[in-house]
């Protein structure tokens, strides 16, 4: 290959540049790579396609997936089919944002820095916490980082986690705990929420933190005030993982006494995209500020007194502290944090409440209709936000049932038996503001037809 639309090098450039270098060929510039490790021949990789051919190929791959434009989604379990306001796509397509790197040069990065500062402000406002960082990979890895922070802050090694926390988040927590020498203790559930009796028994003077999610994986709201008292009695930290959209209606975890609040911003205008990339958020009390992982933006002034923004509290970070850093994270999900910020700007004070309210009303409507089907039971009596577990009639083949719903144009819900053997035969159903009454009614009819 000699010419390509992304490569400006002409034969003339090449010979002119080699002349300056004093090399006779580009090949000479690789003379320091010993022959024994040189690769000869062409790598066995996928071949090159021209622009039109590549687009055709990618469209063909895309078309083989059932997407949410052509299917009606009742799937949630951490990733939700919310409406994405049109303006978001336009803002994040500004290439001044998406082709920039981390804002190391503040004088020419004020736009990104201010956007992150506003993101931090939004997260503080929603969560009721004093301090938030510039974002994390996702909600699940943020939860694992919260466990590490809690262990460092309390100098304790035991982490108590509710089984109602997302199973994949608990998987990640276990993996990372192994690296950090943390002990993970899981506490079971009753009525779809953390079993408070079992939790009280599990929390002791060695407990660094209790990790709960609300709404939890089953869609149920945890009794955070009761859990808070339990944890703080033993001087452990309370870590809550929250759905940010639910905070339009629900009390902020900060007001309920959480020490660390994490979550995934996907419901705030971020495409589902097979579950990634999304954007985690991470907020703490003031006491934990200097232990927070990740990037943080602060406000300051320039030499002429103008307001400006900079990356700050950098002494926590890996490029300075190396092996003693609070975390190895040196990036954030800036572009997706921008999605979340634009979403919250669009929603505003009234919209965030209204959209949360719509989710609740539609979920309750679907819950009522599905629960009325013969043989179908709502699994748990606990309060919910936009998701709930349903017990299918005994003997239902869940995979076959799901396949029938898919054929009828629905993503039918998450099979809880995949990760909770005791809940085999249960589906987790999510209902967002995007679902119309007609779609919900159609879904109920599809259940009737398929059961």
């Amino acid at each position, binding site marked *: 290959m000699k010419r390509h639309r992304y490569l400006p090098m002409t034969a003339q450039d090449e010979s002119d540049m080699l002349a300056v270098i004093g090399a006779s060929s580009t090949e000479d510039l690789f003379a320091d790579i010993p022959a024994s490790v040189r690769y000869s021949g062409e790598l066995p990789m996928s071949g090159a396609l021209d622009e039109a051919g590549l687009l055709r190929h990618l469209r063909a791959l895309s078309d083989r997936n059932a997407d949410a434009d052509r299917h009606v989604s009742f799937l949630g379990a951490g990733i939700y089919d919310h409406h994405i306001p049109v303006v978001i796509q336009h803002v994040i397509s500004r290439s001044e944002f998406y082709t920039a790197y981390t804002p190391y040069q503040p004088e020419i990065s004020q736009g990104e820095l201010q956007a992150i500062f506003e993101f931090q402000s939004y997260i503080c406002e929603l969560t009721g916490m004093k301090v938030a960082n510039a974002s994390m990979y996702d909600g699940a890895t943020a939860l694992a980082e919260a466990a590490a922070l809690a262990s460092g802050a309390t100098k304790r090694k035991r982490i108590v986690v509710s089984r109602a926390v997302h199973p994949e988040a608990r998987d990640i927590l276990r993996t990372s705990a192994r690296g950090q020498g943390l002990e993970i203790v899981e506490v079971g559930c009753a009525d779809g929420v953390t079993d408070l009796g079992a939790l009280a028994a599990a929390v002791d003077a060695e407990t660094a933190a209790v990790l709960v999610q609300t709404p939890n994986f089953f869609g149920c709201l945890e009794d955070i005030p009761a859990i808070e008292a339990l944890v703080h009695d033993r001087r452990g930290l309370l870590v809550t993982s929250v759905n940010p959209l639910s905070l339009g209606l629900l009390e902020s975890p900060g007001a309920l006494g959480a020490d660390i609040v994490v979550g995934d911003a996907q419901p705030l205008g971020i495409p589902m995209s097979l579950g990634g990339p999304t954007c985690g958020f991470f907020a703490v009390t003031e006491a934990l500020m*200097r232990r927070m992982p990740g990037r943080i933006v602060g406000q300051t002034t320039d030499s002429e007194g103008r307001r400006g923004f900079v990356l700050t509290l950098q*002494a926590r970070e890996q490029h300075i502290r190396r092996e003693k850093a609070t975390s190895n994270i040196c990036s954030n999900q800036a572009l997706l944090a921008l999605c979340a910020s634009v979403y919250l700007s669009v929603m505003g004070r009234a919209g965030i409440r209204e959209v949360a309210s719509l989710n609740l009303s539609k979920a309750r409507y679907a819950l009522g209709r599905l629960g009325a089907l013969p043989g179908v039971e709502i699994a748990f009596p606990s309060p919910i936000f936009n998701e709930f577990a349903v017990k299918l009639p005994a003997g239902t083949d869940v995979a076959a049932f799901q396949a029938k719903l898919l054929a009828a144009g629905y993503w039918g819900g998450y099979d809880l038996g995949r990760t909770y053997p005791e809940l085999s035969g249960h589906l987790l159903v999510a209902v967002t503001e995007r679902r119309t009454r007609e779609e919900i009614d159609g879904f109920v009819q599809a259940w009737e037809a398929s059961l």
Partner: protein
Amino acid sequence: MSEIREGLRYSEEHEWALAEAGGGIVRIGITDHAQSQLGDIVFVELPEVGAAVEAGASVGAIESVKTVSELYSPVAGKVVRVNEALIEHPERVNESPYDEGWIAELEVEVETEEALGRLLTAEQYRAHTA
């Protein structure tokens, strides 16, 4: 040139130590040379009051905008007091490293002269930083 104050004792890691009048207590801080190397100090992670520390052990950290430096205790003892003013005003370590920018006071078990005896004199420290 940075100031090296007579009468103080110094460690090779650029901390100073001073026996308080009355005996038994040693005040520690970082030298003028150390603060100028660090640049604008933004946060001092103070030792924990009540902690027992070995000579040469890390008892805290000093953060500047672009770097962080461990604080090593020049003497062994128990931390009895820390300079809490540095929480709000870390810049005092830059402005006044030997006076208002002191960091902690330790109660030493041995005679203070013995505790300080192993440290450098001002003259020796001057040679060390030269």
